[in-house]
């Protein structure tokens, strides 16, 4: 169970990333955020964001048109 959930469904680039970056600020190192997004570009974007920021992408699933990402704060 993630510590915080970001519902970015219906939001387009770059808002899923921006909202996640804002949300993760409130977390402590090791805590996780779950992101729900419908933006198809977010699959590549979250991989890139994870690589650049060092926050680990621990889980990635797709349910219908909704992408779900779980990221752990560095």
């Amino acid at each position, binding site marked *: 169970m993630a510590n915080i959930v970001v519902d970015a469904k*219906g*939001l*387009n*680039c*770059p*808002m899923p*990333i*921006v909202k*996640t*970056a*804002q949300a993760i600020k409130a977390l402590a190192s090791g805590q996780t955020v779950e992101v729900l997004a*419908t*933006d198809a570009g977010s699959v590549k974007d979250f991989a890139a*964001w994870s690589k*650049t*920021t060092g926050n680990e992408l621990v889980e990635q699933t797709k349910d219908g048109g909704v992408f779900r990402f779980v990221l752990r704060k560095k």
Partner: protein
Amino acid sequence: MTLAEAPVVVATEPAPAPAAAEPPTQQGIAIICYSGELEKTWAAMILASTSASLGLPTKVFVTFWGLQTFVKSGKRITGQNWMQKMLAMMSRPGIKHRKMSKMNFLGMGPWMMFKLAKQYGVSSPAELLEVAQMMGVEFVPCQMTMDMFGLTRDDLIEGMGEPVGAATYLSYVAEGAAPIFI
């Protein structure tokens, strides 16, 4: 004395070891927001907010037509002399009054763009600017543009940095920030 006659300098002490290359001190992104057109303003705001989201120190140097975007929304006429005032009259300042470079059609183009943006969940330039400022992006106005257009700091939106010149922007780049010109 010709060059050939110049005395040969003999080093009496070993030359100091060359200093190790200094790591860049100013990593991150340095955007120049030059255009005042709607699409380019949009692109600049997307990149600024995303760059901050990636944790990169982000500065936006706002110059020429780009500075019109950063005039407070309530301001209609800016400038000190008639030419400056006329320029402001011909192109209404403020982030909510950007025109498209093509297909503006007296505002029909932007109206459709905003309608489509809403439909597809795309945040407006004004919303992205707010987010970028909240996330610590530094917007720095160009002093020369302010002088030329007769803009005062009071004309510009809250939270902008001290006005600077081209040298300050280039120093960001020289110190390692990646430049982006929009």
